[in-house]
């Protein structure tokens, strides 16, 4: 069996894990990071994209708020190009009366969050769709963050500092030595899901940064860690609608934020305790609630087109907590298992939020240093990751580059402006095993048609490159040395690179099927109106025109094929009567008709 040795082994390729790898590598440690899927596949890749000012938690959880505003300031420098400086409003809608706004303002002052009350008229000039019945508006330095890019950039920084990042490597066992009272974690047995082989990684210190999966990882060492998986459901609207992060000025609750991120607005979120972080159901009431609550901030938003719904799961942790997940602290938690459980060489970092990932890494590596008996100061707060010279990204940056360099004819994903070069370079240089991996890299298929046109194009291009590429300069997926991930989303930059050599190992039919299913998963909860019409066009393309459901089966599944499948219980494995009776249909229709008439339509 393949053996590797390192000082620090990090488990989890989300923001926290990559942050830990970066921090530890900067402090001169030998680091290996393993992630069971692609970077950001877990919670990091499924969050709404809000870079908190801390305002959201300032009344309820001032400690967390303090962490947020400190980190907010730092990340604007270290990860500038991963952030859009949208600003944020806390809005007092007619539903949010009471003394909360005053308490909010005082708390912001106490914690040191810049907070300026602005006239409602001014807020409306800035955000014309904002509820005009709002009574007060506070401006705070909220922003939005591209967590995919940020994690890649952090990972790249870690690599440049000597860390090894290994994706599609799943921990199957922790190596534990010693008897009762003197136990020590000395590494992990890891399965390389792509080569289908196991690797033993020996480490002086193992850091569990598996987020919502941290309990499962700790369990491998026999340590009970009760992460409270708090599921958050989000819906993305077809276009931005607002350009400022909008928060309700009230105690945090379901559906009270609207986050403009890239080309969409994300309505979020719910907070439901779930048992399994992997298979998350989206209940119809959750989608309904997001839209109803969204109405209070932006009247009419529920009539706009919804692109997709998804759920992420927060790795919340509060020792001994029994209540609702909404009330669990958002502050980070570092579990020193030596002190807590008598197991040395093993730390679990959990809780927190994207905004505080760097801080989480810092305290974790501080603790690791302490346990390893070395003093090495943290430098991440002063060390920008690659790519910051691009400055903050802005909504129009891709369009602007496509226009300036006349790349219109190169667009493969037309909705999100992904060029052929972006696709090929990401596939060649960033570990890519499914089109979903490319989606996270370059936003492939994330626009209105949800892969309707680009799924075929991308699968076929990857296949074409695997049969027509030049053999001489063979590049393997995962070979990221010569390539700067920080520019992964820049059409102009990717265009300047020589085309990658042969790509390997792509099974086009599997790529197609998996990605269509992956998109379907997020569509089902929100298919009505325009998005249902879009789905029919996509179905016309893939069934009527392509007949992909009758392509020769590849006979194999990707590591993610199962993941993309919907939990059958979610939408009813046996959908009732395949054809509803006409009487039912008519009753339904009369209802619809009645309401339409009230709107003055035929």
């Amino acid at each position, binding site marked *: 069996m393949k053996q590797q040795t390192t000082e620090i082994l990090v488990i989890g390729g989300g923001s926290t894990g990559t942050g830990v790898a970066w921090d530890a590598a900067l402090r001169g440690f030998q680091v290996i990071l393993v992630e069971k899927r692609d970077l950001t596949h877990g919670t990091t890749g499924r969050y709404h994209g809000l870079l908190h000012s801390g305002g959201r938690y300032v009344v309820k959880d001032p400690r967390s708020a303090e962490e947020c505003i400190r980190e907010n300031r730092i990340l604007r420098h270290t990860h500038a190009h991963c952030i859009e400086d949208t600003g944020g409003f806390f809005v007092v809608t007619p539903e949010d009366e009471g003394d909360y706004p005053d308490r909010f303002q005082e708390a912001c002052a106490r914690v040191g969050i810049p907070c300026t009350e602005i006239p409602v008229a001014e807020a409306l000039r*800035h955000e*014309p*769709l904002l509820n005009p019945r709002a009574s007060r508006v506070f401006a705070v330095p909220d922003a939005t963050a591209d967590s995919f890019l940020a994690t890649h950039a952090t990972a790249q920084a870690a690599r440049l500092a000597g860390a090894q990042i290994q994706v599609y490597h799943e921990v199957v066992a922790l190596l534990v030595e010693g008897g009762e009272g003197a136990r020590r974690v000395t590494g992990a047995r890891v399965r390389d899901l792509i080569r289908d082989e196991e690797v033993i990684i020996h480490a002086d210190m193992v850091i569990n940064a598996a987020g919502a999966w941290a309990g499962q990882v700790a369990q491998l060492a026999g340590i009970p860690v009760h992460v409270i998986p708090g599921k958050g459901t989000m819906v993305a609207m*077809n*276009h*931005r*609608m607002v*350009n400022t992060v909008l928060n309700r000025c009230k105690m945090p609750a379901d559906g009270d934020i609207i986050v403009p991120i890239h*080309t969409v607005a994300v309505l979020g979120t719910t907070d439901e305790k779930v048992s399994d972080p992997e298979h998350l159901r989206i209940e119809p009431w959750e989608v309904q609630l997001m839209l109803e609550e969204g109405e209070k901030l932006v009247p009419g938003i529920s*009539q*706009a*087109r919804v692109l997709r719904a998804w759920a992420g799961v927060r790795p919340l942790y509060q020792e001994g907590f029994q209540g609702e997940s909404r009330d669990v602290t958002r502050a980070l938690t570092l579990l020193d298992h030596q002190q807590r459980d008598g197991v040395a060489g093993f730390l679990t970092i959990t809780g927190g939020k994207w905004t505080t990932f760097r801080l989480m890494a810092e305290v974790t590596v501080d603790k690791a240093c302490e346990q390893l008996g070395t003093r090495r100061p943290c430098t991440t707060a002063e060390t920008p990751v690659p790519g910051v010279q691009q400055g903050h990204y*802005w*909504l*129009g*940056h*891709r*369009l*602007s580059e*496509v*226009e300036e360099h*006349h790349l*219109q*004819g190169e667009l493969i994903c*037309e*909705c999100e*402006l992904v060029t052929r070069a972006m696709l090929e370079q990401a596939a060649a240089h960033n570990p890519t095993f499914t089109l979903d991996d490319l989606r996270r890299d370059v936003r492939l298929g994330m*626009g*209105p*048609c949800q892969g*309707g*046109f680009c799924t075929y194009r991308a699968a076929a291009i990857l296949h074409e490159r695997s049969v027509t590429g030049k053999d001489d300069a063979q590049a393997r997926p995962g070979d990221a040395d010569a390539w700067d991930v920080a520019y992964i989303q820049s059409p102009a930059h990717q265009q300047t690179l020589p085309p990658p050599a042969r790509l390997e190992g792509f099974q086009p039919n599997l790529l197609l099927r998996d990605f269509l299913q992956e998109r379907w998963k997020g569509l089902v909860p929100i298919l009505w109106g*325009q998005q249902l*019409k*879009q789905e029919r*066009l996509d179905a016309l393309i893939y069934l009527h025109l392509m007949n992909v459901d009758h392509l020769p089966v590849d006979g194999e599944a990707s590591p993610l094929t199962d993941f993309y499948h919907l939990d059958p219980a979610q939408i009813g494995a046996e959908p009732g009567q395949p054809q509803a009776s006409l009487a039912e249909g008519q009753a339904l229709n009369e209802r619809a008709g009645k309401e339409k008439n009230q709107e003055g339509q035929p």
Partner: protein
Amino acid sequence: MHSISWHSVDHSLDECIKCNICTSYCPVSAVTDRFPGPKYVGPQAQRFRSPHQPHSPDDSVDYCSGCRVCNEVCPTGVKIAEINARARAQIVAERGLPLRNRLLGRNELLGKLGSLAPAAANLALHNPLSRLLAEKTLGIARHAPLPTWSTRGTFGDWLRRTAHRRLRSEKKVVYFHGCATMYYEPFIGQAAVAVLEHQGYEVIVPPQNCCGLPLLSNGEFPAAERYHQGNVARLAGFARAGLPIVGTSTSCTLTLKEEAPELLDREDEGTAALRQATWDIFEWLRALHEQGELRTDFQPIPSSGASLVLPYHAPCQLRAHRVGKPALEILALIPGLDLRESHARCCGIAGTYGYKTEKYQIAMDVGQELFDFVQAQGEAVPYSACDSETCRWQLEHGTGLPSRHPIEVLAAAYGLYDLEQRRLVREAQS
């Protein structure tokens, strides 16, 4: 800076299902790489625009001619042309406007100035040297079909001169002539007045100003708004009194009905009243006909052959009214008229688009489909016909064949108008 609002088009952007039918039918993207197509610059690019950006992220939208073929063919009802018009206005608001576009937007002012000394103005404008100069200094294409000022006086002059001869009647209709009729083609107005009076209507021609379309299509929204408010002030009273306001320029009437209210976000009562009362003249005549009130005392139009072969092009700006092709339906009533309907998408000129040096050839390439159609109708064809003035000038430029407004044809069919000389029969006789 005038802030361009997007909200009235935001919902329509959500209707796009990316099917690219608009791109397939776009006459501009069919002939040039400079325009990536309506879907690209419209609903697709729109998701990347916002008023709070460092600069407008794109400029290829400037190559949209605004012909609205995209709106017509879109199966889901996206208001693509409106999205594009707003995007152009955003660019203008940010970057300012070249003098050339300012000039082209001020059709009325140019008309007025030239009419002070039309012969001299025509000479000054229409000589090779000044055209070369205009191309080099202003960017107005040397060969573009610019209009010529009327040397027989303006339409206003004619109205004043013939005021005593105008029909007085209980039945009244208001005529919106537009700048082209006023300064360049007064005979169109004369034909319109003659046809309306022939139906027994008294024609009221109140003071009016430019509809503002040239400004809107060049992205000068604030100036367009001033023009529009002027027209509301002058015309809404007639609308409230229940009088129809008919126009012979399909672009002017479209602007009063829809473009100005929508692009300028005008929701006031006067704008609404004016909008509701405005008709394309043939749309109104068709309604008259449906009530059985259109006179059908047609006479054969003099022609060299047994019947007059007339290739007819329904201009984009008429199709954008979404009232069908009323001129075609009315002219079809005329005996001995062999109407040939063009299915060309656009003549290319699109208002002032084809006047611009960088767009002249695109406009000619777009128009080729129409020019070919007209030429395919045979040697003996004396005219083409089209409701829009700039399209007629482009048609004449592209085919070498004179072009007529359908109202001239109708007036001729009533025996009121000399189609060749472009003057009223009675005035020619007197």
